[in-house]
């Protein structure tokens, strides 16, 4: 029935080209049929509109694989045969920097795993990475990285935001701030957390002092993928359309005087009206965009979807591919916890089995779709582990946290694939070659995406802030 206030709905939307944030208005209006390949829409000229990089770069987006808890470099990609010689010899740690935990007797322990030389490049890997070994030549291992904190939350905040004590924007927020979004229907920075959120919670993907448009959006594995995406129970799309029509009418009337007077504040009010229309469309579109059911069985099998060990992370990796394929700028995946203080063989063994196939599948799949060249893939924890057993360890060996040595690897656009850069000492305790702090890793990551850390700044609390905090160096050795 015709409402006394009725206006054509499009008229009620006013004229507003600007983004309404995080998820900007887009071709959603027109583009109801989403193709499988190209990103559907660009984000207008709002805060998340695509922006050119500072300089040309191969990588256009990033998949960040966060192995939360601190994977052991010694038991994955940086074998230390020397540990066999000093196995169970006593080890003394000390100094003012030690924590209360670092007390008691400690012993060197050898790795419980066997190692191999994988690929043409002969990359060092545990033999329990059979799938990743198949793409070893696409990886660039880096053994020179050093963290600054041996405490999970501070180290996690550091690798995620560049600031150990938190409150700063996440790497994904900076990248989105720098490059904008290529798909207005999806958030530009998507996080796939474990069912349980990491220590520090949502601050790990927070926008810090950057505008809210750049905050990471966690996608839930089950239920509504984005909070409040589904209308309340019993409310159909048609119901909601009726509500929105009434809302638009009331808003139109409320702003009538300002529109007539061409008052600038009418634009702000109009942006809110637009945000409702966008939300309404997202409700219909997002679940389909991220649903992996449309993938063929062979692809699902490749990722280990539905297999006991690999299902959870396999789904995440497959979803990550779907997201970058649709123009999401930054996808961060969590897996963990790798905090194996005890029972190293079992704990790390299980964890490796859970990620080996999915990660190899992700790289393979990106490659065969010609996406790997323009996608940067990073694998890292928040720190590495020590060559000695944890004070909590019994006879079943584990390892303690270690900020001085960690192995990360990168693959994809602009990365020097098939190389191992940097080295740790003979026991894997400390990086000794091509040593760089995490801020340099961040600067390098931005560089690979065409962003200059010194130019990617935001003025807050009296100074121009940047991801590296105070500047850093590109690790040239990692670049192709």
């Amino acid at each position, binding site marked *: 029935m015709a409402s006394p206030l009725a206006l054509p709905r499009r008229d009620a939307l006013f004229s507003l080209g600007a983004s309404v944030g995080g998820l900007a208005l887009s071709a959603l209006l027109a583009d109801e049929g989403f193709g499988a390949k190209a990103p559907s829409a660009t984000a207008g000229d709002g805060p998340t509109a695509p922006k050119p990089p500072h300089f040309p770069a191969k990588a256009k987006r990033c998949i960040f694989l966060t192995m939360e808890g601190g994977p052991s470099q010694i038991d994955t990609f940086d074998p230390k045969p020397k540990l066999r010689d000093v196995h169970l010899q006593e080890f003394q740690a000390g100094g003012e920097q030690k924590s209360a935990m670092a007390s008691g007797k400690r012993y060197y322990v050898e790795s419980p795993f066997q190692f191999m030389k994988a690929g043409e490049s002969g990359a060092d890997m545990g033999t329990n990475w059979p799938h990743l070994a198949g793409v070893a030549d696409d990886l660039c291992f880096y053994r020179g990285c050093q963290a600054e904190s041996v405490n999970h939350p501070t180290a996690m905040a550091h690798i995620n935001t560049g600031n150990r004590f938190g409150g700063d924007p996440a790497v994904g927020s900076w990248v989105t701030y720098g490059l904008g979004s290529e798909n207005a229907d999806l958030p530009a920075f998507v996080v796939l957390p474990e069912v*349980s959120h990491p220590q520090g919670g949502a601050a790990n993907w927070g926008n810090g002092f950057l505008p*809210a448009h750049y905050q990471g959006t966690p996608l839930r594995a089950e239920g509504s993928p984005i*909070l409040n*995406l589904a209308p309340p129970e019993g409310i159909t799309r048609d119901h909601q359309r009726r509500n929105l029509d009434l809302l638009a009418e009331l808003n139109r009337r409320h702003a009538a005087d300002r529109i007539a007077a061409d*008052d600038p504040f009418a634009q702000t009010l109009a942006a809110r009206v637009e945000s409702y229309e966008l939300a309404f469309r997202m409700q219909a579109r997002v679940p389909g965009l991220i649903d992996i059911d449309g993938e063929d069985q062979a692809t699902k099998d490749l990722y280990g979807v539905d297999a006991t060990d690999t299902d959870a992370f396999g789904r995440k990796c497959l979803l990550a591919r779907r997201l970058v394929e649709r123009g999401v700028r930054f996808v961060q995946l969590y897996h963990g916890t790798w905090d194996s203080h005890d029972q190293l063989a079992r704990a790390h063994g299980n964890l490796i089995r859970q990620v080996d196939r999915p990660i190899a599948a992700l790289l393979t799949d990106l490659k065969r779709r010609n996406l790997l060249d323009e996608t940067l893939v990073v694998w890292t924890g928040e720190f590495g582990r020590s060559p000695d057993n944890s004070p909590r360890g*019994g006879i079943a060996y584990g390892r303690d946290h270690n900020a001085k040595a960690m192995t990360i690897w990168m693959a994809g656009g602009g990365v020097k694939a098939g190389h191992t850069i940097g080295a740790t000492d003979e026991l894997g305790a400390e990086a000794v070659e091509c040593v760089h702090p995490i801020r340099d890793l961040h600067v390098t990551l931005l560089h690979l995406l065409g962003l200059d850390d010194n130019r990617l700044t935001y003025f807050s609390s009296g100074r121009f802030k940047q991801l590296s905090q105070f500047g850093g160096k590109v690790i040239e050795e990692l670049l192709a």
Partner: protein
Amino acid sequence: MSLLGWSGAAAAANGEPGQWTNGQRLFALQVQPVFAAKCVACHGDDPADLGGAFDLSSRAGLLTGGESGDPAIVPGDHGAGSLYDLLKWEDGYGMPPKETDALTEAQRWAVRDWIDAGAPWPDAATVEAIREAHAPGVTVPTSGGLSKDWTERRYDPADLWAYQPIDDPPIPPTPEGFAAPADSADAFLNASLSEAGLAPAPRADRRTLIRRATFDLTGLPPTPEEITAFLTDDRDDRAAFAAVVDRLLASPHFGERFASNWLDVVRYADSAGFANDFERPNAWRYRDYVVRSFNDDKPFDRFLTEQIAGDELVDSGRLEANSPEGIDALLAVGFLRMGPWEHTGMSVAKITRQQFLDDVTDTVGQTFLAQPLQCAKCHDHKFDPIPTRDYYAIQAAFATTQFADRPVPFHPEEAAEFAGEPEYLRQRLEEARAIQRRIAAKKEAAKKWYADRGLKYGNLNQKREEGAPPEEIAPEELELTVAEYGLERVAKKMLQRHGWELDRYKPMAFSVYSGASPPMKPVFAAMPLPKDRTKGTIAASAILTGGDPFSPGTPVEPGVLSAALLSVSPESEDPVPADVTGRRTALAGWLTDPANPLPARVYANRVWQWLFGRGLAANANNFGGGGATPSHPELLDHLATRLVRGEWKTKPLVRALMLSDAYARASLHPDPAAVAEADPTGSLLAAARPRRLTAEELRDAMLAFTGELNPAIGGAPVRPEIEPEVALQPRQIMGSFAPAWQPNPSPDQRHRRTLYTLKLRGLRDPLLETFNAPAPDAPCEMRETSTIAPQALALMNGRSTYLRALAAADAVLATDPDADEAAVESLFRRAFGRPATDAEREACVSHWHAMTTRHASLHFDPVRPPTEVVRIAVEENTGERFSYVEKLEQAADFEPDLGPDEADARTRGLAEVALVLLNANEFLYVE
């Protein structure tokens, strides 16, 4: 007063300005700085290692050139030497080696002109004299920077506005065509409006004005009765509005609203953040202290002093510990430790201590000086006259500040009733102990099995590693399962956490004392006052190289900002003593000294911001060179003067500003185009600034809309219903999961004002977060108000907004069950404070009827809160998954709000209308 103590360009000592040639000036002012910045690192700094054997540190080197043998310059002819060509970076090659470092065109031209002028190379003293004579701006004496250059650097006087003494500027005369100002503040605004050729917008209508004033002063909407009373008040507009303002200032909700503003600045939260995000069970008493202080109109200098040094006022005997004043003083210093902080077994003591010191130094700077001191942590300040030495001097004032959760009796005005709440915690503690008993019994059984056989006890893995034969290993059912290992830790963490949370209800304060630094142990319970406060080390303070606590450099004494005018008593350069106690009292004395211009300006500016939406200086936490300069500097000084003369009281200043012409203006100017043209940033306040409700106001307004709001003041934090997915979201803490968010069983508690909801750093109400409630990690000077799609999702689809809509529909129908039009009318009055127009009423009634028809075919099942949640965790020592059940003990007592299952189709239909009103711009914006 002029820039006392600050010097302008000094007379030149080396050579008279008239004797210097243009070439010499070019060299000193442009060419040599470019060489220094871009060249000499490779070509001159190290004579033993000259890149290309080329030396740019002397004229001779340039004349000789490098290994090619050609001269780099030929004086008088820039085209003849190689240098100028190289600087051009043509043909893909040049100097400096990185093209991105290439000189700008202007820099190259300076080199060219200098060569053509004969490439003069004056001696160092002349260079300095030239620079001195040409330098713009003024120098500022300070305690001295790390380098001479910094110490002697010059500032644009405009950037130093905040450091200058507060003038009492004359009140400008009324410009032609303007009415006599209602308040002297208007005189300043009118003068700039007149200068810009703008006329102010007319006075807003009463309905708009009471809504604006009520939200600004109480954070709540006016009730329909309050609106009617104001509309029918037959006094003139000003007198009637003055009565409204006086009523609002006397309301206890005034203190809540201003506390809400203040808590943003001081990064208030009820939990510690980081790995454990332990609750700070007594932080709420600081929050209520702030509410009380604003309601009592505590003088701001007093308020400041209590927050910086309240404990010292008590410990020195100046205040009686158990008196209301002493209680407030001990609660107030919670401010100092309000930042995120924890110290666990994995923490390094020096680092966590430094983290506190850095946080408190920067926060004191931002809060009271509008000067983010963090900028001077690693180096002398880039923009402002703050040497890093001052940073560490101020920090040293806190070097003897120690944490303690002190016994402090409840204040007579405190809400110390905690019905039922402690009992839930005790249930959880008992559950944890039961788990421990069960596991201990199992361990005992295994021990007994080994003891019975004369064998040494060990777990299964140990036995296997030792190669024990199967018959010497206890049967598997005596071995702890992975889940039991996991539960053992879960139970331990529950005892820690919930045991500590019981302190919420105890007369304790989140407080500090002055004393020696005790040895640091992991903190997972209240930190008691030590018996002997001198035991431990007296921390020595030093400039930390690069901000690193492991790299102490030059020692420093406690002090204050040294920039000239801020040394309040010139004869004692340093007002803060080095004694263990009294440092903060002295710092507070310096801050509140009327000769210190910063705190009064800073606070007057905040009060302005809280009423007008934006400060006169737009960066309320940064008055330095990095912040915006004030739009009306004289007005700011005028307000600061009034503040101090009025004994630092807030309410008289607020009252005067509320009654100003500027506050009462309409937000729609008759000529928006003229305003946009003459004043694009809106800083002249030709019209009032419309604003969106803050997150807290939005939630409170929804509760006021339905009539559910419980207006009780103060007390331990409450937990409203938040989105269930977030409430139950597993959240890792060290070795376990944080407990689920359980809403209070009683609606009365759930429907308290948002100010009183439990504010956890690690779990934020998504509704508040999406509406830009700031994360409490750092001081927030002003709320962001972005418009993002998730806000629409939260308000259209969120369960708590839907329940509000339903409650409103129910309330409206309860009073007038049959008259459709009256029901809609009532919703409009509740939501917007005005009657509906005929067209709106008709549209809403018809929407209601259509929705009722749709709802008639819908069936809703009751939704009850879950009584437990299964937590699936990875046992960190084995990497194996285990699960346990977290019992949600409060669910059994939960009294739900009206749900759709209990409402008839007609009520649910009207709820759809109510939901639309809650989402309307008119509901969310104050105009």
